[in-house]
């Protein structure tokens, strides 16, 4: 997995093994399978874990376990942790740029993608203690009751990340889910999986509790049905995939009436690709009634 640049150096570099990120740990896929990621010249960049349904199952267990604690964390804390993730990513700007470059993205474009990803994290970090104020309501009911509606996280969100935006697309879908107190299991882009795993390292170094984000690499065709059918997943966010995927995902999601969120054809680099309605997509409205009396 040596790059051309490395070949000119005297020292042999140590290549990274890209693994999965489940429950705050970096296991290899339990299946032992992998797929080769090659650059445009056909040189192998990495052997990437071909995550299995059992890896997914384990990830869901970890995400479920982490969910109440994460949802119970203060909005301020969640915001700080997202901001911390941004800081960590900023600090590894060079690494991520190089990695994106190795996955076929021109350096300038790669730099822009990393910068945009950092900024996107900061954007959603800022929403942590504000979206509730924008989307909640006190409802003036006719009876002598105090009635209010607030948002609560849907729970456990499965995300099929965009295929063609390995880092920014991932961040753009992950951040709005977790800033709202959900935990997530994400399937990274199969063609650009490396940034996802490196991003997991960023998450790992950012005070994010174990299990809040779980990242898998693998084949979408193979894993979609499990993402969509798992009875302990509350919502599925899927990016692109066409009509066939849409049909498959929603049919299976009906097994436990999952919330199904489709995000197709979105250019994640555009400023319009970030807004609080993406947070709201994986929130539930809870309405509480209480009498007003003595």
């Amino acid at each position, binding site marked *: 997995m040596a790059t051309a640049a490395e070949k000119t150096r005297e020292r042999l570099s140590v290549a990274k093994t890209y693994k999965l990120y489940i429950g705050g740990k970096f296991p290899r896929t339990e299946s032992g399978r992998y797929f080769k990621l090659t650059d445009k010249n056909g040189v192998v960049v990495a052997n990437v874990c071909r995550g299995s349904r059992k890896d997914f199952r384990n990830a869901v267990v970890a995400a479920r376990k982490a969910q109440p604690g994460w949802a119970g964390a203060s909005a301020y804390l969640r915001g700080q942790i997202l901001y911390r993730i941004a800081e960590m990513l900023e600090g590894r700007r060079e690494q991520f740029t190089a990695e994106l470059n190795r996955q076929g993205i021109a350096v300038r474009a790669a730099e822009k993608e990393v910068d945009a990803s950092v900024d996107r994290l900061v954007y959603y970090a800022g929403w942590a203690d504000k979206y509730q104020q924008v989307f909640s309501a006190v409802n003036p*009911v*006719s009876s002598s009751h105090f*009635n209010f*509606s607030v948002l609560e996280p849907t729970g456990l969100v499965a995300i099929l990340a965009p295929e063609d935006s390995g880092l920014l697309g991932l961040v753009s879908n992950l951040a709005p889910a977790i800033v709202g107190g959900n935990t997530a299991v994400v399937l990274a882009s199969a063609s650009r999986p490396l940034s996802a795993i490196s991003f997991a390292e960023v998450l790992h170094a950012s005070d994010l509790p174990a299990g809040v984000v779980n990242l898998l690499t693998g084949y979408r065709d193979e894993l979609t049905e499990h993402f969509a059918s798992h009875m302990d997943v509350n919502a599925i966010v899927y990016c692109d995939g066409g009509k066939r995927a849409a*049909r498959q995902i*929603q049919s299976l999601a009906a*097994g436990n009436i999952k919330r199904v969120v489709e995000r197709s054809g979105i250019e994640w680099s555009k400023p319009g690709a970030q807004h609080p309605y993406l947070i709201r997509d994986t929130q539930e409205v809870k309405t509480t*009634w*209480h009498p007003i009396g003595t």
Partner: protein
Amino acid sequence: MATPENTLAFDGGWEYAPAPESTDHVEIDKRYGLFIGGDFVKPEKGRYFDTINPATEERLARIAEADAADVDRAVKAARKAFGPWSRMKAAERGKYVYRIARIIQERAREFAAIESLDGGKPIRESRDVDVPLAAAHFFYYAGWSDKLEYAFPGRKVKPLGVAGQVIPWNFPLLMAAWKLAPALACGNTVVLKPAETTPLTALKLAEVIADAGLPDGVVNIVTGAGETGAAVVEHPRVDKIAFTGSTAVGRVIQKALAGTRKKYTLELGGKAANVIFADAAIDQAVEGIVNGIFFNQGHVCCAGSRLFVQEAVADEVVEKLKDRMETLIVGDPLDKNTDIGAINSAAQLEKIESYLEIGRSEGGEMFQSSCTVPDTGYWCRPTIFTGVSQSNRVVQEEIFGPVLAIQTFRSYSEAIAKANNTPYGLSGGVWTDKGAKIFKMTQNVRAGVVWANTFNKFDPTSPFGGYKESGVGREGGLHGLDAYLSLEA
């Protein structure tokens, strides 16, 4: 503890004489067509079915059965009406919806009587709850029609097109209002399918809509059973589906819509926990239990059908509940003193009775009030099961009848764990005099509506809808607008 020396007697003595609501102001046609394009029209195949009074088992009217071709006609009419309706000045559109609210208020008594005749619910409820809330719902959403840009900061809103709406038999007029009011205010046109056992008030509402002068085709009402509903759901030119009904059917609909990109909202089943802590206002809590499970014969998706009582007060609560049940009057839905009316249909009664059998065979101890019920019609006396647990079917499954499963608990953590131990998440109740505990409990119950020290309250301004298998989306309030709009940057 209850002994012969300290037991209250409610039987006999001063009894309320019959106080029937008069029906001389009610007009029901012998036969109803489909309301399509502003007119009542015959169904293509000429098929009709009976709608009966569940309290007498007598036929009230013959109702047209819409098939796929009829649904297609209705969708075409709605499609045609959509352009002008959605482009109309929003304030004008709102005024049409206000008119509907007003006419319902004017004809409230008639609507109430028909609702009770057709569905079996007590006139007290149709008069005091269903009909006024239906009018209020139209009134509330009417006002939104020219203010929608304030509801979604940073977004532009657009109506979706034709909304296909399939509603249940438990609150026929009210559910029609919940569906129609926001759809119309947001500029959509509608094809509505009422439930086959309770079509009359929706058809009466068609008269109101015509009287209100709504443009032809803005609201179309197609009657029929499941096949008619499926035709609405599957119609390719319907842009949005709103369904209220069982989780089983909701699942089928969600599947049927897969790949179509139709927007949908689902209001599905429930098995709500109603949790009484020892420090609660016990007498009001008992009343809350009664409202929670016996309101509308228990035909309520958000019914508080799983009661959890803290052990220290369990005996007291159950005794008081039994006393209260003895004062509930079961019988003629049109009698103003009736608390529990007729079960909506023979099929539903059969289902409820099968659960009573299941509950007993699972080892539950069943108590029913000692009241008498009429000979004809479909009736179920208020029923509670004690000695049941989370593993029993009467605790897990939605019965949709006046049947309460009672369990005890010891601690907060046990209560919350059991309350959430269900695939449903529509509603929940908590009773305690301690403020901090209320917030802890209401925050942790995984349900869309939580009633604290109250139960089964509804208001047009208050969003309603479930977590988990209880549905997707909200109806009512500002949050209910979302279902009928597309939000754009």
